[in-house]
């Protein structure tokens, strides 16, 4: 967006005032937000994706072999967990909501605080090795995989040679490429009338499009919307310990006394602290399966989310200026929810998406003394 256009918009907003709300849609519609569209296709290697799938459901990829990626990213719950705050690794609990991994392959930046902005290889490494998540020493992981003849065979057949931890970090992302929205009414054009009205509100009066735009319905940036803190993060020592460890590691000042989630501040590093409490705009795809909402699960339903924004968001001195009370009618709010629901596709369950065989076993390497390790 050019500077000139910003100035123009500010002028128009000031001149027209909030009472002329019908004109706001025109204002927003005029701006050049990336078009809300269907997702581009992603090509993937089938054999590698199949390997990645088996790895995704394998509990031996966590330190104590209790958790797999799917423990928190459960296909039956939209590759999320249905909880306000994630469980995390045994011995502690987590301090944020589990995001779905559906469409993660389309993203450019990951995590609620946006701390990972390179690629899914790094995201995979981060999730596996983080002590409050899967606490995996990847050197042990590599040797576990080499002890499972099914992996040995699959790696060979996929042209991957010998299993290694580096290859695992490439294979799980290959599987994630298969987890994209399928047949969402928005994409197929089979939206209800209510959803169509909601789409217009989304782009217009409600102004959601300011941040939720593009094919993922996310600008990939951090904003402060004033979501209230989830006090369980601080009142449950099992969650608080993970939060402290995370804040310590991220270099947040005074982390022991912190009573709020710093969010994207940890990567924005704004000197005036104005990034405190901002979080990455989430994609709005597949929300039907991934309640509760927001980075800390504080809003239970999509209706609650719409109500929250209709009020102009929550309270925070750093709150985005884009948020104002919307004065949406009951019907308009329902239409918005209908639109949001039209962004969810078929559930990604069954053998195409899940490793359903219980075939995770180690086998003794025969003639061990005479074969190379």
């Amino acid at each position: 967006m050019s500077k000139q256009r910003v100035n123009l918009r500010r002028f128009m907003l000031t001149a027209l005032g909030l009472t002329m709300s019908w004109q706001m849609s025109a204002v927003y519609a005029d701006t050049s937000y990336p078009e809300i569209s269907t997702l581009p296709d992603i090509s993937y290697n089938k054999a590698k994706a199949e390997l990645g799938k088996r790895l995704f459901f394998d509990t031996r990829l966590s330190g104590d072999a209790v958790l797999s990626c799917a423990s928190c990213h459960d296909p039956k719950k939209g590759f999320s967990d249905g909880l306000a705050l994630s469980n995390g690794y045994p011995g502690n609990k987590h301090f944020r909501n589990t995001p779905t991994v559906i469409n993660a392959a389309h993203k450019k930046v990951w995590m609620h605080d946006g701390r990972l902005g390179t690629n899914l290889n790094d995201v995979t490494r981060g999730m596996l090795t983080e002590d409050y998540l899967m606490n995996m020493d990847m050197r042990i992981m590599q040797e576990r995989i080499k002890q499972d003849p099914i992996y040995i065979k699959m790696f060979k057949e996929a042209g991957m040679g010998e299993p290694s931890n580096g290859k695992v970090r490439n294979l799980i992302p290959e599987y994630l490429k298969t987890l994209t929205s399928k047949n969402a009414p928005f994409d197929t054009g089979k939206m209800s009338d209510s959803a169509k009205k909601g789409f217009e509100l989304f782009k217009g009066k409600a102004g959601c499009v300011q941040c939720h735009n593009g094919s993922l319905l996310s600008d990939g940036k951090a904003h402060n919307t004033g979501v209230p803190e989830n006090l369980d993060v601080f009142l449950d020592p099992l969650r608080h310990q993970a939060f402290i460890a995370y804040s310590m590691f991220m270099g947040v000042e005074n982390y022991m006394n912190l009573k709020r989630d710093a969010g994207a501040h940890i990567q924005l590093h704004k000197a005036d602290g104005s990034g405190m409490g901002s979080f990455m705009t989430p994609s709005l795809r597949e929300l039907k399966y991934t309640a509760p909402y927001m980075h800390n699960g504080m809003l239970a339903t999509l209706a609650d989310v719409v109500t929250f924004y209709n009020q102009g968001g929550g309270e925070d001195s750093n709150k985005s200026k884009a948020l104002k009370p919307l004065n949406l009618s009951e019907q308009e709010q329902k239409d918005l929810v209908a639109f949001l629901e039209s962004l969810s596709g078929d559930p990604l369950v069954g053998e195409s998406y899940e490793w359903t065989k219980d075939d995770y076993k180690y086998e003794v390497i025969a003639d061990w003394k005479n074969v190379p390790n």
Partner: protein
Amino acid sequence: MHTLKKLTLVVSGVLLSSMTCMTYAADVPPLAPLGEVPIPADNPQSDAKVELGKFLFFDNRLGGDGSVSCVSCHLPSMGWGFATPISLGYLGTTHWRNSQTIINSAYYGKLFWAGSSSSLEGQAKSAAKGGVAGNGEDDLMEARLALIPEYRKRFKEVFGDEWPLIRNAWRAIAAFERTLVQRDTPLDKFLAGDKAALTEAQQRGMAVFNGKANCIQCHNGELATDQKYYNVGVPPSPLWESTAINQITFRFENYAKGATEELYRTAKADVGFYFRTKNSWDKGKFRTPSLRYTKYTAPYMHNGTLATLTDVVDFYNRGGVTADGQTTAFPKTKTKLIKPLDLSDAEKADLVAFLDAFSGEKIMMDAPTLPEYAPLFTKTELQELKK
């Protein structure tokens, strides 16, 4: 000239072979009563520190998933070690060496079988963090301590810090371990002049120990160890060949300890001290362990391949060979000090009896009641926050 010299050497070698033990014994410090435990200048003892260290030693929050603590592999009921050949590992793994007793560990200059740690403080840290041991991480463990009010109080009292520091946890544990000593064994009493402290069989065993069997050449001084590294002929653990999870850990340890690609591919036995020096002549060497408290710490050797002290004596009597003919995978580095001993059954029995004198009463300890977590803030404090 050459021939004559060789002949002389051979002849004198044969003649002297029964005397070599005497020669070596003269060069080494004799067995002695165990002195005061050494305390490092940078971690002085205090009752409060020891008490804190005891809590922490038993606290499974000093590990990855809250399932293991120091005591998990160093159980008082198992001689402050673990009674399987290879120690228990972190959940989902196995360890790869035998768990050593904590008793008298404060006297060692270096810890672990290959001496990879130079202090008890460092050992506690390595054990709590190792992937097949505690699998804990500093940041999370430190955060856990901060959320236990009793620990906040005790750490502040002992170390003066506002918040517990994880490095001070290792110092407290080390201080506790420095109280786990045994200085009143039958041997200590005997060496202090109480001639009735050892039975006649034990006294005969002591003579074999110092003489014909020449155990004293390595097991000498007050701790009954020279703390040096030898390959005495211990064979590889049979678990490497028979058990999948052990094969995983075996490769992991080589990988993690920085083995070369070639070593990683070809290693079929624990190279031990070589991991530290990277000198080929150190392959398969391990630190001479103390013989103190060994009555309670079966099985024996770095990989627990010998089940009883009788087996150990038989092993050395055969010249570093097990009952089924197994020996080291690194014959080139095997010490020349180990040779068949030709001990009679009576001598072996006396030697085993004497080994018993290195241990006093069994040291038992009940687990303390651990302090609990509590929220750091009240709900009101959290609600009053202005954002």
